[in-house]
């Protein structure tokens, strides 16, 4: 298919920049939240913006963050003690 070679180069650059920015942002956000950053980062490179929406739904809505007040690691709401630092949270 030769139509793709007719697409101007700047458009390719824009698409690549968008995907790269999305992938890097998801990577950084996942690393801050203690998620699997490499998996999420590669996931973010595949598609825009649907993969970003999926990431936000999974990390913000479905798996709501509940950080421990002492060590900031994400723990379940049902926990009475933090499994990482041992502080009482419940």
């Amino acid at each position, binding site marked *: 298919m030769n139509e793709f070679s007719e697409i101007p180069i700047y458009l*390719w650059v824009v698409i690549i920049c968008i995907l790269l920015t999305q992938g890097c942002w998801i990577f950084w956000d996942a690393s801050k939240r203690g998620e699997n950053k490499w998996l999420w980062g590669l996931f973010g490179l595949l*598609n825009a913006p649907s993969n970003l929406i999926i990431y936000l*739904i999974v990390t913000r809505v479905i798996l709501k963050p509940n950080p421990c007040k002492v060590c900031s690691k994400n723990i379940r709401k049902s926990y009475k003690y933090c499994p990482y630092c041992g502080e009482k949270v419940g």
Partner: protein
Amino acid sequence: MSYNHEKIQEKLMDVFYKEGELTKELKSHIDDCSECNSFWRDLNTIEENIPSFDLNIEVDERVIGGAFRKVGILKEKRKNIKDLALFATIASIILGCVGLLANMGYGKSIILVQIFLVIFAPLSIPFMIRQRLVKEES
């Protein structure tokens, strides 16, 4: 500081900690050498002032634990920055290759893969949630 001074000051340290004797040789050197004299006077000053220091310091292990945690957080942040730079490099290479393939005439295949991903990517959500819950359980 010359090697001789270093040796003499080591011997003076031994005398300070009561592990050696203040010999005539050492005394005469202290009288003749200003550097070692100053060193010996400093040691004596420390010995005189030690009883007045408050050595009964309360150790709060939570403060120590908190300090270690902060160090851990800083180290993790630096590691994340390095990993991000590595990821950006790898991602640029991958996307560059994809762009090149599209330009070479494989664009139709890439579009098909994208359509597939758009349709089936949301189906991966339950697996990601399950992986996360398993990680929290372990």
